[in-house]
């Protein structure tokens, strides 16, 4: 502070320098944002059956491979009725998502909102805001705790997916007893918990299968790599791994490679593995026969059913049912040729 008084000129010069920097950075950011938003906006004429232009605001919690597929499914489904799509990503920040949705509704005046909620509880306030503005509010992929103001919701069924994974393990255990390493996703994530609980419930008390280790990964690839390495070190007789998402598959494969255990089906060293999602990692591993099965999320249904619900709501029709839980599609080595075409990740792998 004393320095401010002694050399006010210098401070002014430096302050104006900082101001210029801020201006330049802000300008560059806005230009970049403008480019990004034009790239992210899918427009198909912005029309509807009634001739009125409709715009759908979309807010995702994050953007990764499955979110990209979900984004594409919405954009594709929006083409037929001619809706425009404005797309936002909240970078896993529930507060940021609430602001984005407020902006979509109050400033951009979108006609409907589709969200993948970062926080299933906090998002209720955004749903109430949408209802107050008479804007249909839809949730996909992740469920919303309070359904009162939600027009339509379509999610996967994580418990059912976990049970589907277990069915693959139980089928394999009929020929070879399995000692299973179970990786767990984020312990505060409802999908991770559902996938774990469904799997554990179906495996409990079944003959031929033993869960020898449960390792949390927090959906972090490094923790999955280290956790798998440690578990294999602790118990080298592990011969099966449940991976709760395809996106952790490369980490597990790296750990198996380091342990000399990554081998295709039929090789004595093969470790039986099943994952969920059906992304490119899973499909590549299925083709290489290092992965035994993958429970694929029906991503295309999310976009189709959400847009259909919006069309009904904007047309003044009742949306029924209000909530759908879409079960995953089991892709395994036996049905790969016939089924892979229906799996979103296999189309691009």
């Amino acid at each position: 502070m004393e320095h401010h008084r002694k050399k006010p000129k210098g401070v002014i010069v430096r302050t104006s320098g900082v101001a210029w920097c801020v201006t330049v950075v802000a300008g560059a950011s806005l230009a970049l944002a403008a480019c990004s938003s034009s790239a992210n906006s899918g427009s198909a004429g912005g029309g509807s059956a009634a001739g009125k232009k409709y715009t759908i605001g979309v807010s995702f919690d994050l953007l990764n491979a499955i979110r990209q597929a979900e984004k594409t499914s919405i954009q594709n489904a929006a083409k037929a009725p001619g809706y425009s799509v404005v797309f936002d990503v909240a970078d896993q920040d529930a507060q940021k998502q609430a602001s984005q949705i407020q902006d979509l509704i109050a400033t951009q005046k979108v006609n409907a909102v589709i969200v993948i909620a970062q926080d299933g509880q906090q998002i209720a306030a955004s749903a109430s805001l949408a209802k107050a503005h008479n804007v249909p509010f839809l949730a996909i992929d992740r469920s919303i705790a309070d359904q009162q103001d939600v027009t339509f919701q379509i999610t996967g069924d994580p418990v059912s997916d976990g049970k589907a994974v277990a069915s693959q393990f139980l089928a394999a255990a009929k020929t070879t007893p399995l000692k299973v390493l179970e990786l767990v996703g984020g312990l505060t994530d409802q999908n991770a918990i559902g996938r774990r609980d469904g799997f554990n419930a179906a495996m409990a008390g079944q003959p031929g299968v033993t869960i020898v280790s449960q390792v949390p990964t927090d959906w972090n690839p490094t923790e999955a790599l280290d956790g798998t390495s440690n578990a294999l070190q602790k118990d080298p007789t592990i011969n099966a791994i449940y991976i709760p998402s395809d996106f952790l598959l490369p980490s597990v494969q790296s750990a198996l490679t380091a342990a000399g255990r990554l081998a295709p089906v039929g090789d004595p060293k093969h470790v039986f593995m099943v994952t969920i999602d059906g992304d490119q990692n899973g499909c590549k591993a299925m083709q290489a026969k290092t992965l035994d099965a993958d429970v694929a999320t029906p991503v295309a249904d999310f976009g189709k059913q959400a847009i259909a619900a919006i069309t009904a709501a904007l047309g003044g029709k009742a949306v029924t049912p209000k909530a759908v839980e879409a079960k995953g599609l089991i892709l395994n080595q036996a049905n790969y040729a016939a089924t892979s075409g229906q799996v979103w990740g296999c189309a691009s792998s």
Partner: protein
Amino acid sequence: MNRVTDTYRRLHAATRRQPLLPVLLVLLLALSLAYHGFASVTNFRNIAVQASPLIIAAVGMTYVIMTAGIDLSVGSMLFLAAAIESSHPVAGLPTAAVFAVICATGVGMGLLNGLAVALTRVPALIVTLATMQVFRGAGGHITGQQNIDLPANLRGIGTGSLLGVPTPILLAAVVALGGGFVFSRSTFGRYVQAAGSSPDAAVDAGLPTRRVIAGAYALAGLLAAVASLTETARLGAVQPSIGQGYELTVITAVVLGGTSLFGGRGSIGGTVLGALILTTVQTGLVFSGTSPYVFDIVRGGVLLAAVLAAGARWQKTRAGSRPAGRLVPHGTDRPAA
């Protein structure tokens, strides 16, 4: 008798210098006795390999925290470096050129942080919080948030070995020894300690504090990039969530190792021990077969212990020799260099 006394004195002196050393040894001993298979060369090598990227990044963070700064962008720097490494123009270059590009990128990112901290009055916490988002966003833009497999030639740094010693361990050892040497034997290392210990006195003594601060952040950026090369090579792929939350682990290792969050006090050896303890605890948890929820409790407990110990050390130091009111952000009350 004299030999026994000498050995005891040396051990006592080593323990006084690095109080974490007996903690690590007791931890390893306890886990070895408790769990079959823990006390094996393969497992100890596993722990060392897993700790290597953390050691590399934490050595850089030690320099930053020694200047009374902080770098929250380390995880994002790791991701952006990985994203650039996997991008088409870079991944196709010869291996040495890729490493050079990534190291230069790391220095650039660190320098951006350092210059912003040194030349403005904005606290490092705010500057690096902002760059954390910038770097992660840029990484996401480059990768399109997709998983990208790494070519085989770039995986050797994480999976290869030299004379039977895994490359990540060798790299971490070189970084730790080099970092320790620079820290204690070079002019730059002494300036870093002086700038963090007593910023006003450092300025009065004519030390180039701004250049020193910028240099510390640049070094942290460089080492984050090297950690990135090692980590992505181990994973075999670049994934969008690489480095997410990594800053917390790196800072925990540094603080656990005895470096004061208020600057001026710390050691590279302590940081290495801090990283090894964190990794050993993580491995021990898997061996224990405990509930996944206990992992978070233990990790949070270690962080809490580190912070409480750091607070106690600071109170002791403040009561002993320093005047109150040292908690000033970089640049405050300092004339232009």
